[in-house]
């Protein structure tokens, strides 16, 4: 497990940030969905509330925890973007954490909102996906790879 730095943790709590969860189905097809409830718990694990146990995301998460497959969480705001790879650690089906996520969902979306499970993910790698940072890194590694000539042309 890696500890997420404070800046990334803060992004999870920022209401302007976009948070998405990436999973894979039984055929290897990626499935990427927005999950506003994604948050970092006090112990550094990532968690989100699953509103429907029959969803494709939920089935993919079950497959991942059962067969030790990774998932990704991406958090984006303005130009900054971070992709966190991790593995599902726990599926919470009852108890205080489920209740907490449920009540929060009902505060935001009304009394008919539901959270049927809370998934906890252990982060094990962070990739900075901020475009400017990615470009600079790639350019440093392979300065002449597919670089368009007119970028360096005179006039």
């Amino acid at each position, binding site marked *: 497990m890696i500890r997420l730095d404070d800046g990334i943790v803060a992004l999870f709590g920022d209401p302007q940030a976009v948070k998405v969860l990436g999973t894979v189905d*039984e055929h290897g097809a990626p499935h990427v969905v927005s999950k506003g409830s994604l948050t970092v718990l006090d112990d550094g694990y990532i968690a989100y509330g699953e509103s429907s*146990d029959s969803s494709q995301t939920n*089935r993919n998460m*079950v*497959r991942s*925890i*059962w*067969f030790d497959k990774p998932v990704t969480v991406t958090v984006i705001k303005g130009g900054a973007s971070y992709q966190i790879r991790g593995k599902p*650690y*726990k*599926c*919470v*089906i*009852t*108890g*205080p954490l*489920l*209740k907490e996520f*449920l*009540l929060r969902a*009902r505060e935001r979306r009304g009394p008919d909102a539901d*959270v*049927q*499970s809370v998934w906890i993910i252990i982060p094990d790698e962070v990739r900075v996906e901020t475009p400017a940072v990615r470009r600079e890194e790639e350019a440093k590694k392979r300065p002449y790879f597919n670089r368009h000539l007119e970028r360096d042309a005179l006039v």
Partner: protein
Amino acid sequence: MAMDNNELNLAEVIEKYPDVPRFIILKLDLQLRGVKLTDRALEAVQDDRYRHSGISLYGTEADKASPKAAPGPAILRDGTTVVYTPGNESEDSYVIDNVDGKFLILDGEAQIEEVDFSPRPAYYGKKTSRGVPMESVANARPQRLDITPYRYCHFWDTGHQCKYCGFFTDLREQRQVGGAQLIKVLDPEDAYETVKEALKEPGRFSQIYLTAGTDYGGPKPFDNEVGRYIEVLQAIGRNFKSRRFPSQLMAPAYSKAQLRRLHDETGLVSYCPDIEVLDESLFKWICPGKEKWFGRDYWVRGALDAVDIFGWGNVYSNIVAGVETAQPHGFKAIDEALKSNLEGCEFFARHGVQVLAVVWKPWKSSAFRGQKQPPLEYYVRLIKGFHDIKRAYGLTPDSDDYKHCGNHGDSDLARLD
């Protein structure tokens, strides 16, 4: 009993069946071998977060043996529920300890997996307006409320109880228990008030489940208990604005008229007449009461007829998986036992009925005490086969899944469907 499969241990079965989740294989083994808590773990579950009722469905010996309360069902990290019952442990049982605030499953010295327990619900410790403790009215599983309107099975009156059964029995006296400790007949108003209180805890429950001992009395056989179930379901239903509510009744096979009453006069969604054992000749030996009232064909017919009323996929039937190998009359080779079960499962699935497997535990208070269970690998092959069959017929166990019953490995596999 001679088995034609080698008895592989947990790690060997997990390695041999990489397409079956290790959590589910572990669950099956926990149910097969039993679970005991260390003193430290037992102390930890006396905490208000975990402490459950001392009154269980399966016997009072364990309840009386210790002043400490047992916890609710165990929950593995992936959300799999494991129902086990104290009082039937052996030398070979797994152990749950509490180490640095975490519950751990141990096999000897080896740490197998983390585990938690279903939390104590908020309604426990409260009483109805008639002064009845609510936890004696409804027992809590992780997401299910279990209500038992009648704590007695009349098959025992004439010695016709199912041979594997230990319901409501006193382990020492080998008979059913009555007395002030257990309320035999539930007052429907107590059910209404208890469910009302339970619903105040957001996110705690998503199904209501009823079962009871068999009462074949009445103007027509089973009329008394059908009437009782209707009264209790109607009382429970007063808590909901919807006509129907997520619910299941596990009960004997009834006539079509009785099924129609249950469906039309209550909010019941799902019905489960347990066939217990799929082989025709073994049914007669193992379930003499069901054979007497009114034989296997009647029980099969009851399930099939119920599909016309409750709908495709809303009728279930449990088997006590493994009891088909009880001796001297049961299968002597597990391939034969497996074949019998898979054929039976397919028959029912073709008609829209979901057969589910419960791991057989030879209760000390049952006629089959001391019998040898099939090996773990049998159960893994069985649940795979059951799941594959039901999936092929488009059947998903919405009313009997991993969160609610916790008894069926084949239901657990359906989380991917």
